[in-house]
């Protein structure tokens, strides 16, 4: 029995990718989660795992192919039952093992199920949200736009469509209460199934065929349309630069494209406010120096900032949130995941420290080192870059006195860190040389007001200067 392995949602907002390597060959027995092909997407190289174990019956793509989400890459023959047999024929002992194995296996499909659903959920999310990490912003807004558009279409469009949409709603209701028919949606059973797989509400898809028939292509277009919206504004005609001298054209890398798209949509969606502050980190620097001398542990200011920010996010829940304009709600997150921007050869990547509030600074420091390494090697997984609530961008290692980072939609705030400098500070009637760290906070004014912004940033700088005071909530 053949199962199709399809291209999953590779990364948020990524619809297509190029096959860079095929890691299995026909006839190979593969395990569940074993990587089968590698694709190069907007977000570095990703290996696609097999959703289940089996034997590779055929490979449907070749290296260099452009593939998109939902495309079949490999046909897999389920191979588990065969193994069962051979094992069953062995001794009693084997039988016991077998039973144990079966029990394990019994559990596995469940796990598989939940995992699959999660994956798909993520898929849904990302497809709905459309933006890559940086700026799912666009997505929400464009979704809204879409909806509005659809509504107006329904209102002004031909009666036909109106009728249909009304009926579709009915159908949805029916579905909930067990009835079956979505027969009035003009889409074939295969298209309807793909829509469910992609998490697309087929009732909202506009069909391009006769009688409004929806094709698989229409589903994919529907997915893309939200994303494409804002890029329209970037399609400004460029002058012919060669009239002023020699030029060279180079393809943008996947990550560059994603960053361009996401920052521009974040920029156009989020009303940014920028707030600046500075923190005296002389004591921290001193402590870090001591620690370094004493042990192997390599604590960085970024790790400390992650920890401090984690505590701050607990104190200021609105910064650990997202805004849902469609439903006019704010989504407060009960977990604290903090992204740390990493500069790599390929471009900007943002791995996420999960549950930073529950980790020690030492643990955070180690995790940052590992993730940064992976980022530079292009080995970050999708999971490692997802789920951030807040981002820290530390450019201090390079220099600069201050900068205004762009909020990483759908997050609502980002902390920019520049280079600490020795500065004379007037303390106890004297100027003393102190290490002063410039901090900037960019935030989404739809969610956060100026006073809240400055309180949050001030809390962070105070926590850096005097952790006890900050932690005591004074």
């Amino acid at each position: 029995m053949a199962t199709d392995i399809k291209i999953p949602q590779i990364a948020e907002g990524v619809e297509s990718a190029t096959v860079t390597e095929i890691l299995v060959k026909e006839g190979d027995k593969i395990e569940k989660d074993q990587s089968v092909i590698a694709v190069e997407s907007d977000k570095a190289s990703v290996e696609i795992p097999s959703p289940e174990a089996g034997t590779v019956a055929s490979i449907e793509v070749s290296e260099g192919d452009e593939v998109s989400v939902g495309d079949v890459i490999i046909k897999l023959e389920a191979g588990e039952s065969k193994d069962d047999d051979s094992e069953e024929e062995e001794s009693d002992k084997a039988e016991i093992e077998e039973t144990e194995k079966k029990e394990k296996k019994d559990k596995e499909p469940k796990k598989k199920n939940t995992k699959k659903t999660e994956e798909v959920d993520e898929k849904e999310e990302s497809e709905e949200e459309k933006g890559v990490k940086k700026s799912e912003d666009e997505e929400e807004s464009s979704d809204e736009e879409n909806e509005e558009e659809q509504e107006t279409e329904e209102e002004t469009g031909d009666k036909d469509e109106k009728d249909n949409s009304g009926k579709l709603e009915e159908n949805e209701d029916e579905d909930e209460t067990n009835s079956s028919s979505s027969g009035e949606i003009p889409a074939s059973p295969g298209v309807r199934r793909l829509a469910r797989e992609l998490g697309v509400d087929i009732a909202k898809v506009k069909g391009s065929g006769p009688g409004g028939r929806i094709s698989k292509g229409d589903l994919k277009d529907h997915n893309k349309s939200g994303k494409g919206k804002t890029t329209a504004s970037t399609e400004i005609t460029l002058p012919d630069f060669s009239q002023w001298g020699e030029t060279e054209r180079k393809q943008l890398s996947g990550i560059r494209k994603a960053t361009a798209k996401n920052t521009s949509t974040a920029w156009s969606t989020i009303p940014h406010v920028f707030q600046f502050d500075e923190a005296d980190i002389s004591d921290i620097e001193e402590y870090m120096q001591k620690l370094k001398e004493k042990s192997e542990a390599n604590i960085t200011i970024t790790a400390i900032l992650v920890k401090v920010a984690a505590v701050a996010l607990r104190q200021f829940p609105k910064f650990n949130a997202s805004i849902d304009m469609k439903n006019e709600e704010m989504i407060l997150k009960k977990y604290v995941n903090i992204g740390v921007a990493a500069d790599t050869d390929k471009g900007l990547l943002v791995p996420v420290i999960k549950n930073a509030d529950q980790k020690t600074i030492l643990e955070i420091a180690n995790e940052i080192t590992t993730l940064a390494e992976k980022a530079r090697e292009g080995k970050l997984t999708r999971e490692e870059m997802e789920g951030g609530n807040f981002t820290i961008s530390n450019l201090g290692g390079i220099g600069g006195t201050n900068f205004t980072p762009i909020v990483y939609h759908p997050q609502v705030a980002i902390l920019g860190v520049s280079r600490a400098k020795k500065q004379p500070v007037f303390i106890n009637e004297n100027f003393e040389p102190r290490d002063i760290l410039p901090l900037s906070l960019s935030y989404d004014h739809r969610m956060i007001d100026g006073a809240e912004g400055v309180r949050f940033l001030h809390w962070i700088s105070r926590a850096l200067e005097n952790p006890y005071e900050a932690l005591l909530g004074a």
Partner: protein
Amino acid sequence: MAKNKKKKELIIIGAGPGGYAAAFRAADLGIKVTLVDPEANPGGVCLYRGCIPSKALLHIAQVKQEALEAAEWGLKFEKPEIDLKKIRKWKEQVVKKLTGGLGQLSKGKKIEYIKGTAKFVSEKKLKIQPNDSEAYEAEFQNLILATGSVNVSLPAIEIDHNKIIDSKDALELKDIPKSMLVIGGGYIGLELGSVYAALGSKVSIAEMTPGFLPGADRDLVKIFEKEHPFKDLFFNTKVEKVSIKKDKIKVELKEKNGKSSEKSFDKVLVAVGRKPNTDTLALENSGIKVNDAGFIEVDQKRKTRNENVYAIGDLTGEPLLAHKANYEGKIAAEAIAGIKGAAYDPGSIPAVVFTNPQLAWCGITESEAKEKGIEIKVLKFPWSASGRAVAVGSPNGLTKLLVEKKTGRILGGAVAGKNAGSLIPEISLAIEMAATAEDVALSIHPHPTLSETIMEAAEIFSGSPTHISK
């Protein structure tokens, strides 16, 4: 092993066309399946005492009828001899061959087949009672209920399985009574009535509603009314009382207008419908409730309110048809395997009555369209204009398409005539594919076949059918 017996990955109760389809699909998806059914092999009512044996007998009826018709065209046969024993044997061979085949498939897919029954002990536990060994309790990770349906009986009429019989008895073909009354003018009554009529019985039909096949397309019914093989038709009539008097059965009939009459027959077949077979499941122990009509409520994935318990086929609601059960079985198996796209959302479920002429329909009906406020155009192509239909002696047939006025989408269809059952799937596919009348009209259909009638009906939509005038 004992442990193994206790915790099963997937148990399916009932191996009819729903249950075995679910089992095979699940096994193909790598799930370890336990299939419980009282029969020696999978097949259920459909193969053992429903669709398949009745079609074997109807085939005989059709051959006989066609031989008779041929006399009018110049091909005369001797009066046919009916060897009941041989017919029975042939029918049994058909059943044995098919169910045996399913048994082989089941083995090939490593399905654990338990000959027996199962019922709930608690929400998460079943008691499995094999036919030939001791009962034991078993837990499951997932469960599919697929116990199908049973004949509905009438309170006033006791079935003695000899003179007063049900559909199962009728298929056993013990004898050919001189006269027979079929109570119920639905498809089971008409099909079995047709078999007995072809074998020489004088068959009459009693039906409470005003005509054959309540709920079916009236244009089809009209065609059947012209050609039906029955003696007397008692419509709008209730059977008040049935009593056995010596060799005869006395039947009291009461018409809607109050008129009563008494008739006597050699046999009475009760075919008033089927109801979900939930009694054997001890559902009360599972927490699963049935609705007012006795069906188990399920979601699009065919899951009941109990996590990990699914129900399919006749248990879940109308129409009670094998192919619906089959489809649901596969969906439930896929849902259990975690295939996200799996859902039961048919646009069309074809129905076929295997009488002569055959009647078949799918999608929405005219009355449904009216109810839903969908404006439709009804396109009718009479078979008298089809070369093939005339050549095979089925000029009274009809092909009908229900097309949405604005979009031209085909939403429903109906066919009456020879082979209607084999013609309807094209219309059903058109509905599922959201095809328009134009699409069908622009698809080349082979000549000379009855399928051209579908193309020509579709051509009416654009106003230019080749073989009929507007």
